[in-house]
């Protein structure tokens, strides 16, 4: 199977806006934007793809009953080649979430940890592949010592974990009780007696040396926190290819809450109940109903759209007077609140994300959007004005400012965002060794569209840029920071273009063209599969991803429904056995 969507696979043309598709940072740190692997999912492989588009429409409008995308196979019957178990390092966010779960909200989480690099555009994939660096080990050690000192030094924090009264400086019984209980939460499985003994010996020795029970115990806690059993989410399967209970509990909890299992989930795992689909789904529904599920869904979309990069947003303030340090984090919050509202509060059709007028703004963003601030402080709900074509995700500062240059817009970067993040299509990097300059703005060619024209009309360049730029040019009414404008260099902006056969004129029709694209719903299912399993979509997994996508589409694009469907599927619950010889 070949990835589809990009007409410029194979000999790609030169790029006139090379900032877009170039890999800006080796090892997948920044805008690694392409997601489908070369053996990836293609819509051509979807059963009933001829009617998929129509069916998607019907299903979305009618709630899933009327759509004719063909009978959906039970997921158990979809051909699926089990994928190997993975070993994921906790992201910095997960590390902090886990500490707060166990030690309480008051614990100060060290900010400096091994950075999380992206692979295939996602940290979720990066943490399953990269090794911890030498510097990372140092940072984890410092963090563990810092947290241990905090917990043991603060009477309130200490009381949360030390429930026994030590009878001496090196009271091994009490130490064992504390470390065993902490270990079960931190390592997300019960510790063996030997493991507890080892930690107790270490702690008791330290307590003797330092003459303090608390300080000694702190070294045991530091050992728990530096252990690979804490730092990595280790997965294992049984002989039948079922993920074991502890691994499954972690997959579930990290997917939905972005942290380790809570007590109830650990109890269910210990009782061996999670192998029953009904119990697993019951737990999934319990987690989804909890406010912490919003943390989990935020983590997924933040990873997918690379919203962490908003912390380092660089814009020239002389060009964009609204720019300040507040803009990036505010823009991220707007996007995530909107997603949270759609997925949880409204539980609406995901495709509305492209066209919603409802959004959440603070004063800073309201100023950029030129609307009245909804609240004196913090964020409030706003209905965007009808007169301005700002709608949905692609009208938000987060996407518009991230997919742009420090002083200007970038039709290519914005087009790449739509193609790779929303439609899971592939945009290859530009070829090397070419002069890729675009002409500067002149009286005869004042707008970006004018400046790009020559290249868009050259067949060589256009084979790639015809793919990315027209979509991005539709967003030219929004400047490099996302402010609305009607003119570029005092010339009216032309927002017409075409997306895979569907013509549009202006941003609003473009949003709709993306929303109605046959890959739009499937793409979210694919990304979620990658996020949850840390696997790229390879040949053996593709039919399952297609089936998940088809169900998402047929079910009215309900993101919570997609999560539950994925959780119940073999892709989530099963792994290949016999790790020898695994790639």
């Amino acid at each position, binding site marked *: 199977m070949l990835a589809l969507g990009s007409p410029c696979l194979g000999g790609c043309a030169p790029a006139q806006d*090379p900032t877009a598709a170039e890999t800006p940072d*080796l090892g997948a740190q920044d805008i690694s*934007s392409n997601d489908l692997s*070369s053996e990836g999912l293609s819509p051509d492989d979807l059963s009933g793809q001829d009617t998929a588009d129509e069916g998607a429409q019907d299903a979305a409008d009618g709630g899933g009953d009327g759509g004719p995308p063909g009978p959906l196979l039970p997921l158990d019957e979809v051909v699926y080649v089990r994928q190997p178990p993975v070993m994921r390092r906790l992201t910095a966010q997960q590390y902090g979430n886990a500490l707060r779960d166990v030690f309480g909200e008051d614990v100060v989480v060290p900010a400096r940890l091994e950075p999380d690099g992206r692979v295939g555009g996602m940290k979720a994939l990066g943490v399953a592949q*990269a090794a911890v660096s030498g510097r990372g*080990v140092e940072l984890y050690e410092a963090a563990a010592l810092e947290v241990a000192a905090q917990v043991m030094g603060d009477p309130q924090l200490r009381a949360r974990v030390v429930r026994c009264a030590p009878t001496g400086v090196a009271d091994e019984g009490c130490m064992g009780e504390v470390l065993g209980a902490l270990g079960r939460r931190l390592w997300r499985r019960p510790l063996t007696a030997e493991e507890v003994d080892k930690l107790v010996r270490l702690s008791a020795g330290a307590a003797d040396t330092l003459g303090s029970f608390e300080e000694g115990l702190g*070294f045991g806690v530091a050992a728990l926190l530096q252990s690979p059993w804490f730092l990595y989410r280790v997965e294992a399967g049984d002989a039948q290819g079922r993920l074991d209970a502890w691994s499954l509990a972690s997959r579930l909890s990290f997917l939905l809450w972005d942290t380790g299992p809570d007590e109830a989930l650990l109890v269910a795992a210990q009782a061996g109940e999670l192998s029953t689909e009904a119990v697993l789904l019951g737990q999934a529904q319990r987690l989804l109903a909890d406010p912490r599920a919003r943390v989990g869904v935020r983590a997924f979309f933040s990873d997918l759209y690379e919203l962490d990069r908003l912390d380092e947003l660089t814009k020239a303030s*002389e060009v964009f007077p609204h720019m300040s*340090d507040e803009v990036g984090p505010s823009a991220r919050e707007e996007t995530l609140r909107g997603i949270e509202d759609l997925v949880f509060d409204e539980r609406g059709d995901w495709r509305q994300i492209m066209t919603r007028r409802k959004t959440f703004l603070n004063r800073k963003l309201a100023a950029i959007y030129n609307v009245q601030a909804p609240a004196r402080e913090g964020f409030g709900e706003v209905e965007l004005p009808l007169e301005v074509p700002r709608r949905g995700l692609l009208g938000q500062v987060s996407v518009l400012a991230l997919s742009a240059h420090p002083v200007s817009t970038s039709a290519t970067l914005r087009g790449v965002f739509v193609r790779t993040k929303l439609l899971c299509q592939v945009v290859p990097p530009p070829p*090397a060794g070419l002069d890729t300059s675009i002409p500067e703005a002149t009286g005869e060619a004042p707008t970006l569209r004018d400046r790009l024209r020559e290249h868009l009309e050259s067949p060589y360049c256009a084979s790639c840029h015809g793919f990315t730029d027209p979509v991005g040019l539709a967003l030219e009414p929004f400047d490099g920071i996302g402010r609305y404008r009607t003119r570029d260099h005092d010339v009216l902006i032309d927002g017409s273009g075409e997306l895979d056969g569907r013509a549009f004129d202006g941003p609003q029709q473009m949003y709709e063209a993306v929303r109605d694209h046959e890959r739009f719903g499937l793409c979210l299912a694919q990304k979620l599969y990658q996020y949850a399993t840390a696997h790229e979509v390879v040949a053996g997994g593709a039919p399952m991803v297609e089936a998940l996508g088809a169900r998402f589409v047929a079910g009215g694009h309900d993101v919570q429904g997609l999560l539950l469907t994925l959780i119940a599927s073999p892709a989530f619950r099963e792994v290949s056995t016999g790790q020898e010889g695994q790639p």
Partner: protein
Amino acid sequence: MSGRHRWVSRRALLKGVLAGAAVSVGLPWLELFWDGKARAGGLFPKRFGLFFWGNGVHPARWVPQGEGAAWALSEQLAPLAGVKDVITVVSGMEVKVPNAIPHASGAAGILSGAALRVEGEDNGFAAASVDQVVAAAIGQDTRFRSIEYGAEPGSGLSYSSASSRNPVESSPYQLFDRVFGAGFRAPGEVAQVDPRLALRRSVLDAVREDAAALQAQVGAADRARLDQHMTSIRALELRLARLEQDPPALAACARPLAAPLADYPPVDGRAQVSAKNRIMCDLGALALACDQARVLSNFMTSPVNNILFPGATAGHHQLTHDEPGDQPQVHAIVLQVMEELAYMVEALRAVPEGEGTLLDSCALLATSDVSYGRTHSLDEFPIILAGGAGGALRQGLHYRSTTRESASKVHLTLLRALGVPAASFGEGASAAYDTLSAIEA
């Protein structure tokens, strides 16, 4: 840039630093310890330095006129006038790897000597970067195996192996804290051995046992990742053991009197690249002077960086492609980068050591990810060396290759000059088996 001027600007810079922290500015920061304290004689360890910047140069304005010892700085090398006698420019070399992905391929080629590893849509180094090859040989006897920093937040390009990338310190304060915070002992400071050091080592021992037990349960790729993890834990244990011993008593070593600012926020949307770089170069020089590390890598800016440099109307990378004509703005940025390189060289030269300076024992390599930023070319690659590697390298030369030799020859020359018994550097077409004898002493 004269030495005197440098001190003035350093002090002025420090005033800014201290003003923010409300500290008296009566004490000059670093030179208090260096002026007139040169230690006579003695052998000093050899050190390696890297200065890396993104987006290349303009070769037509970069390559110097004249060769050997009779040469003149080019237009773009002009900021190095003050250090001309201690640098060697190597021109005409080629990075001989496939240029599969602009910027990324060149960076992998020049730093690791190997082609970029491309897997699907992702890429990374296929081999260790040169700084880590050096660190593996000469980084074992210091508190830190190597130190990586960079003024631009980012990940740097220091790879211990294909899957293990060392993050860089991009905050001057954090760099200061790492080297000179808790755990640093200046020469002559009497301190009892902290019993916690031994306890930390026993924790690391336990953690390493956990990792070994876990290895039995995972597949081959994850076993290799855990191997890396365990190697790093072991290295940390060794460093802790060293802390329990007496620190090296180099005369030029001193604890900085004040910490840098905690934060250097952008001013008018422009990152404070120069201010951060200079403080970190000072700290890096002091870290070498105190023998806390012998490998120091400065990833000042990254490939494809789009930093808004002072005076520029667009980001650096965007300008390399969009600015028409002679690209005066890109040229101005290259000059700013060279000023920062000059500062790093001066910072190393400012530390007296024996009859000479710290720079005498260093081999510093300065280079970028592409040659001509506009076209991503890999021939006529920008390479500058500084320092004498303890008398092993000649300085003040322009070496001009007329046969497009592999840039890996430079690395092999540096490795040998540092006493690393390497037979070759690089892979495939990029591999070098011979050194550049013209620059060897």
